[in-house]
């Protein structure tokens, strides 16, 4: 029934079954079963939080490797602007563009360029009469996914345009086919160099529609290490490559960049998945007024905070600030007519609820009755030892038949104490040895 592929894998040999990821998952998608963390793919929004917090490095973001380049005659790299913030002392983005051409790519199309086109479209869209406000950015796939799961009324607020990376992929592939008529579309590989695992599942699950223009997703981390040596040489020899993006496009890498570029102060820009969810709840309750645009990034700091990056997000942002400083605002004079028709959507996000206890209301009510009464009998300390993030989630799991009530360690401890006490009384009466030595003194006697 469910075919959603999420982008986090678990190294079972490293997972200790601790409760760190369990407690931090914003959608309660994780459970600990048989001492290992498992993810419910229906609930996972690929925010990467569990990858970031795992103390044992057992959670890994799934992405493609450089091996995938081999399958194509012509390879196009789509670097995310956050890649530029990974390098210390970089004064010319041209070294990255040139470097990419030396590590296996035939051409480069910067996602920042496409971001400038989206910015131009957003400005125009906001001026249209009759649109639902606030308009919500479609750029962060984790945010789009949580809207589709939990916020039916906010779906139509999401701007009906695909994110910059898809537009970059469409334009880059079209340009490559025009420049190389000898190539067939299958011979051209489009590679997104991504800061986040959410984009991996976004591509795998075809969020961008039936015809996906991105073929593979590499991690910014892998690309960073592949580029280091090459870029060192380029800095000595110089490069003729240069960035075609401007301040606006590169600004998209961190929170506030996308919003500030629309020249409308009535915007809200938030980051961190918990903050994003809270903002969405408040918009849903009609609690925020006089707002035209909302930019939400699941990662702290924005895309620079992605789980597949190397640098601290705030350091990366500082580097981007100095890189942007001497760039033109938006050098390509992006025009809304540059947007491929396929990138426009009737609606960017469709409501797909997945939290129903049962399709039958009466049955769902009965289940919730049972959940509430079990929950009352639980300790309410949300310790996670049972494998569920909260006592309420545990009660739900019991009723859904996914776990047993005796997994609650707090209740089991009480039962065990009672048992010990009874045994002790019996032991005194019958002159038997106690099950557990009472004190050091007794231990020594044994």
């Amino acid at each position: 029934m469910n075919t959603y592929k999420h982008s986090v894998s678990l190294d079972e040999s490293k997972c200790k079954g601790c409760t760190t990821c369990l407690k931090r998952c914003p959608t309660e998608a994780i459970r600990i079963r048989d001492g290992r963390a498992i993810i419910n793919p229906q609930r996972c929004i690929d925010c990467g939080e569990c990858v970031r917090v795992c103390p044992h490095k057992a959670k890994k973001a799934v992405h493609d490797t450089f091996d995938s380049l081999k399958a194509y005659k012509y390879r196009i790299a789509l670097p995310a602007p956050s890649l530029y913030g990974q390098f210390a002392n970089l004064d010319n983005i041209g070294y990255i563009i040139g470097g990419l051409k030396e590590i296996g790519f035939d051409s480069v199309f910067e996602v920042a360029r496409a971001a400038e086109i989206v910015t131009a479209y957003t400005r125009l869209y906001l001026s249209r009469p009759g649109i639902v406000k606030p308009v919500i950015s479609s750029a962060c796939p984790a945010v789009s996914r949580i809207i589709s799961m939990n916020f039916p009324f906010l779906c139509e607020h999401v701007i009906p345009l695909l994110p910059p990376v898809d537009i970059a992929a469409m334009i880059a592939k079209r340009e490559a086919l025009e420049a190389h008529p000898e190539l067939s579309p299958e011979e051209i590989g489009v590679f997104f160099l991504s800061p986040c695992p959410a984009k991996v599942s976004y591509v795998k699950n075809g969020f961008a529609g039936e015809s996906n223009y991105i073929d593979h997703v590499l991690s910014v981390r892998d690309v960073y290490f592949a580029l280091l040596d090459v870029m060192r040489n380029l800095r000595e020899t110089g490069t003729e490559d240069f960035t075609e993006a401007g301040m606006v496009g590169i600004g998209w890498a961190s929170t506030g960049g996308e919003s500030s570029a629309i020249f409308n102060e009535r915007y809200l820009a938030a980051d961190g998945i918990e903050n994003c969810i809270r903002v969405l709840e408040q918009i849903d309750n009609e609690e925020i007024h006089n707002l035209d645009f909302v930019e939400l990034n699941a990662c702290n700091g924005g895309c620079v905070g992605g789980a597949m990056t190397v640098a601290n997000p705030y350091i990366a942002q500082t580097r981007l600030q100095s890189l942007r400083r001497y760039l033109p605002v938006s050098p390509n004079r992006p025009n809304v007519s540059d947007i491929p028709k396929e990138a426009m959507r009737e609606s960017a996000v469709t409501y797909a609820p997945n939290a129903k206890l049962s399709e039958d209301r009466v049955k769902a009510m009965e289940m919730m009755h049972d959940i509430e009464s079990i929950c009352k009998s639980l300790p309410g300390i949300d310790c996670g030892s049972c494998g569920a993030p909260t006592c309420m989630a545990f009660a739900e799991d019991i009723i859904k038949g996914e776990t047993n009530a005796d997994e609650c360690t707090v209740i089991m401890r009480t039962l065990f104490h009672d048992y010990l006490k009874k045994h002790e009384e019996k032991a005194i009466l019958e002159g038997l040895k106690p099950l557990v030595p009472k004190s050091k003194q007794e231990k020594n006697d044994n």
Partner: protein
Amino acid sequence: MGEPLKFHFEVDGENFSSAGEASVMVKKKLRQLGFSPEIMRRVSIAMYEGEINMVIHADGGTADVTVSDTEIEIVLKDKGPGIADVERAMQEGYSTACDNIRALGFGAGMGLPNMKKYSDYLHIDSEVGVGTTVTMRINLN
């Protein structure tokens, strides 16, 4: 048919940033029960407005939500100052909230009007110096 479901919440009067938590929890329950987006939205906005009112004016209170086969009932009870003129309080734009509450973006005088707009039944029982009980019902059929 089934026995009605009852949920009880304590609404903390001290904390503005957590105001609205009870309505978010109720929304989650309604989602699990498979209610339509429209019902979820009406319940959640009506309840949210009431919750905020209790935080602003009455130092908190309690919220009791009952889900039956035919309706969802929300009862908000506080021991606040009470509403002197309920009819006037129902007018759009009327608010007794002080300036520092307004500075937080509240006190637009839309709370009670919105509660009326999103519910099928609204009853306010208030006594000055004793407290206020607001009962809202949303029909399911």
